[in-house]
């Protein structure tokens, strides 16, 4: 079933690869059903080997599904009409050494069926937009890794696509470069475009994604709005109180998750959940202790991500 309102729609998508001399079949993607709505920024997360690049290759028709279906912008992914509305940046891209930056963009423009005037009008402003205008006539073999990533983004945007699929777009970029790419992705969203990108750089996801999908060992673990996913996971609740005698506090036998911490004339108490919070608050009020603040501590994406990785690999959780 192809959903016309989706930018990306996959149903029960699986991929098997054959390895070794005996051609042993290994399933690297298990029944992926995913919908990315038009106009959203979707972050596709997962550790190395989770199947992110395999998914993207399936979307782009670089490899073929063992079962299941893919549709992009309401059409079949391999349809040239659909492809002409998509921009794609592969992971660690590599381009023809013998071309200059502007020659590469001109070549991509030709493959997209753009006429000479449109190509000429588009190339230099696009190079300006990705910050390598001065390297327009430099051969690509002289480009740094960051510059290659930027020219890769430029070629993905040359056709002014409705859907942009980026495989690890921040890879190889310094913090300034990463910020510029984040801004660029946000500006694409402002223009009404859909951006689907895979990454393992979590702060980038937290900053710009509307929704995320988490992939572990070829299985989609969770999809949702990032804030809601993390909201549901309150790690602990921190209560700050005015300084009191710690021995007196210990006599109250409060259900704290960590020992009290003295910090600049105040004491920090931690409890695990709301039940314990009620208990502690009533005990403190009964003793006449002045409560300064009560702040729930949400899980960060990194903590959530590590926990999921540990769970899926069967390793015991560390720390909490």
């Amino acid at each position, binding site marked *: 079933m192809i959903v016309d309102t989706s930018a990306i729609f996959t149903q029960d998508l699986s991929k098997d690869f054959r390895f070794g001399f005996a051609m042993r079949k290994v399933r690297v993607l298990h029944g992926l059903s995913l919908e990315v709505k038009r106009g959203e920024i979707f972050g596709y997360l997962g550790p190395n080997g989770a199947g992110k690049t395999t998914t993207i290759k399936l979307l782009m028709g670089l490899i073929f599904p063992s079962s299941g279906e893919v549709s992009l912008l309401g059409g079949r992914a391999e349809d040239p009409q659909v492809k002409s509305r998509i921009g794609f940046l592969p992971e660690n891209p590599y381009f023809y050494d013998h071309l200059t930056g502007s020659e590469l963009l001109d070549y991509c423009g030709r493959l997209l069926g753009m006429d000479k005037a449109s190509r000429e009008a588009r190339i230099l402003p696009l190079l300006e937009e990705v910050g390598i205008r001065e390297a327009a006539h430099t051969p690509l073999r002289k480009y740094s890794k960051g510059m290659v990533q930027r020219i*890769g983004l430029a070629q993905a945007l040359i056709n002014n696509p409705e859907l942009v699929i980026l495989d690890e777009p921040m890879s190889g970029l310094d913090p300034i470069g990463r910020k510029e790419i984040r801004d660029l992705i946000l500006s694409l969203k402002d223009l009404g475009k859909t951006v689907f990108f895979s990454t393992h750089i979590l702060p980038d996801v937290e900053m710009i994604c509307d929704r995320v999908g988490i992939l572990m060992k070829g299985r989609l673990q969770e999809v949702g709005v990032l804030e809601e996913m993390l909201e549901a996971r309150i790690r602990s609740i921190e209560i700050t109180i005015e300084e009191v005698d710690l021995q007196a506090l210990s006599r109250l036998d409060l259900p704290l998750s960590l020992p009290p911490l003295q910090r600049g004339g105040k004491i920090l108490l931690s409890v695990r959940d709301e039940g314990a919070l009620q208990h502690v608050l009533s005990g403190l009020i009964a003793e006449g202790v002045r409560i300064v603040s009560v702040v729930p501590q949400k899980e960060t994406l990194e903590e959530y991500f590590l926990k999921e990785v540990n769970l899926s690999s069967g390793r015991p959780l560390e720390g909490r």
Partner: protein
Amino acid sequence: MKVLAISINTFKEAVRDRILYTLLIFALFMIGSSALLASLSTGQDAKIIQDLGLSCISIFGTLIAVFLGIGLVYKEIEKRTLYVLISKPIHRAQFILGKYLGLALVLLTNVAIMGTGLLLLSRIYLGEWPWRLLVALAFTLLELLVITGLAILFSSFTTPTLSAIFTLSLFLIGHLSPDLRLFAGRFSRPAARLLIELFYYLLPNFRHFHFESLIINGFLPDGIVLFQSACYGLLYGAALLLLAMLAFARRDLK
């Protein structure tokens, strides 16, 4: 338009590669040095120059066709440049056709340069332009196009090393194919004979492209023979290209 863009890019890539120039300069040097051998003979100098010159063009052309041809598809997969291409609105068959035509253009340019060198040298020794050599050069080019077809076919599903081994093996077999037919005649069992005959018809027969000895001795082959040979080369090349397109159509680009 899209096939043309891929062809031009393939041509640019080849002409910006120093290996091509090294081969070309070496080939021109070999053609030139045939004049030295010719000076040692009496009365046969023009024939020796033309014979050696045409052989040089065929050998260096084959080297270019095989070693550029085997990397045509594989290099694009290995370097992942193909990922960007396939994501654009082109069919995989257009990619194969574009790469093939690009290399065909490289071969045409090389044969034209080497052929011009040979014609000039022959003009000096003969005192007239040996236009008949153009027929030999055209069939050398046709042979190279079939070799490129073999290289691109193997390149579309296997590694460059295996592609080189397969292509060069078929190149050698293709030059010995009349012997294959004689070999079939030695078998008394019809099934064995039929099998070898089948191989004879399926494997390329490069003898169809070689009229050098006639041309050097001042003759031109019959028009019908030339026409049949040209049709054979074009159809065989087209079949190889079609097979390469089919092999590449469902290949996973891992």
